[in-house]
């Protein structure tokens, strides 16, 4: 499907990504990024997080604007349901990451995407977070991601796209594999 006069455009600047890959292979320090978020409690289970700065390519950066993301718990948890539940934001992060990956991989493989839709579902036994049963974990029992992709290629090619996207996904790795978490506290 690839040819010299490709007009495939998924809106991903693959050339820049490939150049970055080449440049960063020889500059490991520049490849070290730090992602940040800050969070402030509002009331009840309602909090507002924001992301603005990050570090990478050897220097500080700022997003084009500060992005705010609110979280809350639903009414069935006796909360006010002002915003999505934090675990739903985790699903959102995974979906966003995998979908971005699909677009990038498709661009690199000269596959024109027409539509990419994902639905995610994660069963959770809340006996864990409620402390009813110490054998039940707090987190998801698993995550199912269903993709529906329309593209100028075969079913097999689409499957390969989605598989490669998982292989290169940061959020997929964060969720699927253990990560050390350090929580520091000081009295304000």
């Amino acid at each position: 499907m690839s040819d010299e006069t490709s007009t495939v455009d998924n809106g991903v600047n693959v050339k820049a990504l490939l150049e970055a890959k080449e440049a960063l292979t020889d500059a490991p320090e520049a490849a070290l990024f730090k992602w940040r978020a800050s969070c402030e409690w509002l009331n009840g289970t309602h909090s507002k997080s924001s992301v603005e700065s990050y570090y990478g390519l050897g220097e500080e950066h700022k997003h084009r604007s500060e992005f705010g993301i609110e979280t809350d718990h639903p009414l069935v948890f006796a909360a006010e349901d002002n915003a999505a539940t934090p675990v739903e934001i985790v699903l959102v992060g995974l979906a966003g990451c995998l979908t971005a990956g699909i677009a990038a991989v498709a661009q690199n493989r000269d596959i024109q995407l027409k539509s990419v839709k994902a639905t995610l579902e994660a069963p959770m036994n809340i006996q864990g977070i409620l402390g009813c049963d110490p054998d039940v974990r707090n987190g998801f029992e698993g995550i199912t991601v269903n993709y529906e992709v329309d593209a100028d290629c075969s079913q097999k090619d689409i499957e390969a796209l989605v598989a490669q996207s998982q292989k290169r996904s940061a959020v997929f790795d964060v969720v699927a594999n253990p990560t050390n978490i350090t929580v520091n506290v000081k009295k304000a």
Partner: protein
Amino acid sequence: MSRSSNGHTAKNIDVVVIGAGHAGLSFSHCLAESAIEHVVLERGEIANSWRHERWDSLTLLTPNWQSTVPGFEYSGDDPDGFMTVRQVIDFIDEYATVSAAPVRTNTEVTSVRCDDDDYRVSTDDAVWCCRSVVIASGACNIPLIPAVGDDVPAGIQSITPHQYRSPDQLDAGGVMVVGASATGLQLAEEIHRSGRPVTIAVGEHVRMPRIYRGRDILWWLDRVGISDERYDEVDDIVRARSLPSPQLVGTRDKLTLDLNSMTANGVKLFGRLMGFNAGTAQFSGSLRNVCALADLKMDRMLDTIDEWVDDNADASSFSPPRRFEATRVDESPALTLNLGKEGIRTILWATGFRPDYSWLEVPVLDRKGFIKHDGGVAESPGMYVIGLPVLRRRKSSFIHGVEDDARDLHQHLTNFLNH
């Protein structure tokens, strides 16, 4: 007397006690004191699980002076020492003898059924028809292995504390101990000393110094009232009952057993074991948190002791307060371990136990197979259970904790029979 379905003659008796360990014998002693007719049915010998389901070097983690049961107590010349398994067996044996407990050994209970107002307890050679049943068959019949145990890579031997006797039975090579309970740490220490490098997968655990301000920590827990905290006053009883045993060991030198003493000897710590992937063990990133939690809880307990001394005693009769070094954990603990590459040949599951009620046909079990009870009073009238962790008090988990439970439940049972 009537004929039962299996042809054995049914014998009528007020109470059947199942299990002749310290708990069953304690209950029997209380019944005898009030002249309630009963029998104690024991599948094997007296103190059977101590004879057959314990490792060779085990000592009690409670000091000898704490070995008290109704009407009997340790009388040797080493009150601050710790019994070996052999001494525990002798202690329980002697208790059965001096209290003339009506024990039938080698009598396995095959079923307990409810029949109108009576229970029918079947054994291999008889059927007992009784108004009340006391289940004292132990808390540790079956070693628990978490679901991840199904995925242990080929070539790695799994072993439970029931199967373990001494390091000699293990392959040469590394050992991963899963669980940082008293069992986990005691076995990790012994195995590591045998020359087999040990790693421990550490989840939630309970840290305690052996000696604090010159006294055994268990003396303090009795003194400040923690041991007597009731099951219906404990914050989270589900959690309290499922906590790993405190990191204690009974040694002549009163050694403190904790993760710092482990790592000082070269044992490596990992987080809670979460899974296996292509021969690699994966661990939770919560190691620093579970260690910080255990340190915080220990300090809170020591604060309680210090406050008790300030309010109730002459502080000069104890050594001064102190705090212990925080658990040392790597800045960034490893999250994976390639078992083959690291030479690990054995996984020892110190991940807890559960009772075996496969013979219990009265519908009193919850969906996880535990008896539904309120402080030992089972949901089925006339049925009692004793000898489980935090049954009625925090100290229920220990030998000396059974006496108060037995007396309370005996009172309840007496009222039930007279009703």
